[in-house]
């Protein structure tokens, strides 16, 4: 007798967020990345179709990072000083499907680059590469409130993903995303309640829930990964049970978390890559929809992993 699998039927569905506007959509991107849309828990292919595979974005900075490990510096070498070349290298050499630019240099402690300079950089970047773009602020609330509106305007109509809105500072960035047609990253500190609250506050300002991506905040393998995993799982369960306020795709910043653990800093150069790869696989199984990564070798492995996992029937 054939084995009959029990399948769960859920009433809720994760919303689909599109990043990047093509010419038809009055943007200049060559393609659009779609994330989300799940109707079941991660990787339960028998339960419901999973319309979109997890996507990967390469992390680049506006200034040369001073604390990146040699293993990464070796790869990017002299382009670290030039964000435009860095972006081109990722796209041309490593076949990046999207880029995530962090405006670290705007931070008052890291150069305090003006919002004008950063907006000009965004404009130029959009000319030089045609993949969908994620734009991150510098993390200083006051500065971000100047910086992000400028960058958002510079990328108007390109349907970028901009971030991050946090509980104490979400209004300015939400208004910008709303005005310039972008989607928004809502960041909460490994807390499902705050994630929900932030989504409600943002949607109260008029930005549809369907344009929000949750950054649940993660830890690397061995550094609280299981906390992130369980929060993501709980959020998914709530979303699938019909709670629209938490039915957003997840973005996970794997690169920044894994390349600072002590295991990545050993004499074994491969270890950082392994850490980034393993953390990513666990997060994909927790439901991550978009991974922001650093090392091309780790990206290559995860690309292959996604291919095998999601094409297996």
């Amino acid at each position, binding site marked *: 007798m054939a084995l009959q699998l029990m399948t769960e039927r859920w009433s809720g569905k994760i919303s689909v967020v599109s990043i990047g506007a093509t010419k038809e959509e009055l943007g200049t991107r060559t393609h659009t990345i779609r994330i989300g849309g799940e109707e079941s828990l991660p990787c339960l292919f028998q339960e419901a179709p999973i319309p979109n595979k997890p996507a990967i974005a390469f992390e680049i900075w506006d200034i040369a990072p001073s604390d990146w490990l040699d293993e990464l510096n070796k790869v990017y070498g002299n382009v670290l000083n030039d964000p435009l070349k860095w972006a081109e290298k990722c796209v041309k050499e490593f076949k990046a499907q999207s880029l995530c630019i962090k405006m670290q240099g705007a931070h008052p402690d890291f150069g305090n680059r003006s919002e004008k300079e950063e907006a000009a950089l965004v404009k130029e970047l959009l000319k030089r590469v045609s993949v969908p773009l994620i734009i991150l602020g510098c993390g200083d609330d006051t500065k971000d409130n100047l910086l992000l509106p400028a960058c958002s305007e510079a990328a108007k109509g390109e349907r970028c993903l901009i971030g991050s809105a946090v509980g104490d500072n979400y209004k300015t960035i939400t208004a910008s995303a709303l005005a310039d047609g972008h989607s928004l990253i809502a960041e909460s500190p490994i807390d499902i309640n705050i994630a*929900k609250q932030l989504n*409600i*506050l943002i949607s*109260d300002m008029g930005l549809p829930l369907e344009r929000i991506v949750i950054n649940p905040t993660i830890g690397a393998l061995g550094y609280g990964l299981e906390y992130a995993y369980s929060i993501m799982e709980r959020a998914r369960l709530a979303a699938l049970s019909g*709670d629209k306020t938490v039915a957003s795709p997840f973005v996970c910043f794997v690169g920044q978390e894994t390349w600072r653990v002590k295991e990545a800093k050993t004499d074994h150069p491969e270890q950082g890559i392994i850490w980034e790869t393993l953390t990513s696989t666990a997060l994909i199984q927790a439901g991550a929809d978009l991974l922001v990564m650093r090392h091309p070798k780790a990206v290559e492995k995860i690309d292959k992993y996604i291919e095998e996992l999601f094409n297996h029937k």
Partner: protein
Amino acid sequence: MQKYKVTFLPDNKTVEVAKDTTILSAGISCGIFINSACGGDGVCGRCKIILKEGNVATQISPALDLEEKKKNIYLACLTTVHSDLQVEIPQESRMDLNASLNDIFVKSEEVESKEAILSDSIFKHSPLATKMYLELPKPTLNDTSSDLDRLLQRIRKVQALPIMQTGLTNIRQLGELLRDSDWKVTVTLGKRNDTVEIVLIEPGDTSNKNFGLSFDIGTTTLSGQLIDLNTKKILGTKATYNKQASFGSDVITRIIYARQEEGLERLHAAVTESMNQMIKELCSEHNVDLNDVSYVVCTGNTTMIHLLLRVDPTYIRREPYVPTANFLPVVRAAEAEIKINPRGLLSCVPGVSSYVGGDTTSGVLSSGLYQEEALSILIDIGTNGEIALGNKDFLVACAASAGPAFEGSGVGCGMRASSGAIQKVKVGPQDFEVTLFTIADTKPRGICGSGYISLISQMLNAGVIDKNGKIKLENHKRVRNGPSGKEFIVVFKEGADASTDIVISEADIENLKRAKAAIYSATSILVKHMNFQLTDVKKIFIAGGFGTSLDIESAIKIGLLPDLERKRFIFIGNSALAGARQMLLSSDATIQAAEIARKITYFELSVDAGYMDEYMAALFFPHTDLKRFPSLKG
């Protein structure tokens, strides 16, 4: 031991204390109350003082920044006296307990809800103290029974009473008193649980002067009533802040403080002094002689009752959280330093556990929860909020530490519900103009609990704040940056009976949000724990000292109360005080209260794995899970 003089400015009060005494203790010992939410642990940073002259020793505290240190600012609780000192107490560190006391005695009258007073009539009138005028047959050579026997026989002729006791003091003066008064005397009989005591014997007929007092000793607020025991009439009600607040704003910090040298004595003195002052005022206002007051019934949470009786509360806080006593014998009021008739009696409403005390028992009594057919709930919103769920078949209760915000304490412009307190507000949705309703329709002086509830709900409606409680309105004359972040001006000082604008700050809203989250989540967990749903609860009794009324709609809008059919809610005011009064007026009620206390099962929230999560989810207006508040959509 070396002693030094400490002078406090601007009061110019001086006190002599031993070396190494903290400035906080020195202040308390001369009646200067310095803010201290943590009870002297050096954590809250609210007891800042300015050293003008002298030497001190202090500990490093993160609560002080460099600027403050340069200005010679110290924390009073961490700084000890090492020479004669001059110390200035800045305005923000002052705890003006005396001002609120005076204020109460002059202007305020707590208004009680009609339901609470009406329910008094369900118990038979049989007060705990009765007066009996007796004319005794004179002894003759044929009738030589003793004076005491003669008195007891005469009493039993009027009323068949169980075992009677009388103190030696009474017996010592009995012979002369009977003869001097020509065998016409009035006896005061007081009930001591199952026995009756002859409390007092007076010459002549004073039976029409029979008074008693009921008190609700709250962590933040102390309320008392003077009652004519013959007519059941409430002569007067008063309320004031509990002076113990200067030793910490919650019960835990006070329990810790009680362990300090003379800590227990000070806590005891703080509450009894306030009570005695209140008794004195009540009696003089209503022309009642203190000697005609012979019975006091006190209710309050377990810690408050321990402190009232000067019983060490230490073990309430330590695992497995056991109080010294839940059921306390009737004692002489003088033993607890309560000044009524020196032989008068004091009875405390029995409690349930360390954190569910006599106030819950008396609330369940006066609300009638214990005899409801349908599932009902009593939510007593105080600093130590109590929630009791049940009906005539079962009772279960839990405690939630909400903090004093709803009693108008610990919030910037908060005040008790007395005249001049803003108790209802309207905020215009376009112009953000504010319309006010104050208690007694006088000029506004501050905001009471119901005022804050109404204000937050209106600010949400008008879009002044977001669901997280942050002020989102910008560029408006009513919004500005204050000392503790953004604030919204409710009344400009020109329109207020205050020296500054009446405002609500983001910090105040945060405080109120935490308080409402504690109450809501405790309610929700208790109901869930018993395998019910909130919608199964048919009657919700709301008790607390908010003001004369509570707008249920606003309370639901901010997520303090569950979103249920509005007609299921009944606001009953201070139900604990009402219960204490019922007991004072009826021994049947006293028996019922003991039964209730035995019947209530205590549920410890802290052992419930879901509580913290519930609480976090409730830290939003109205709630993170909007589906729980379906009626608020749109």
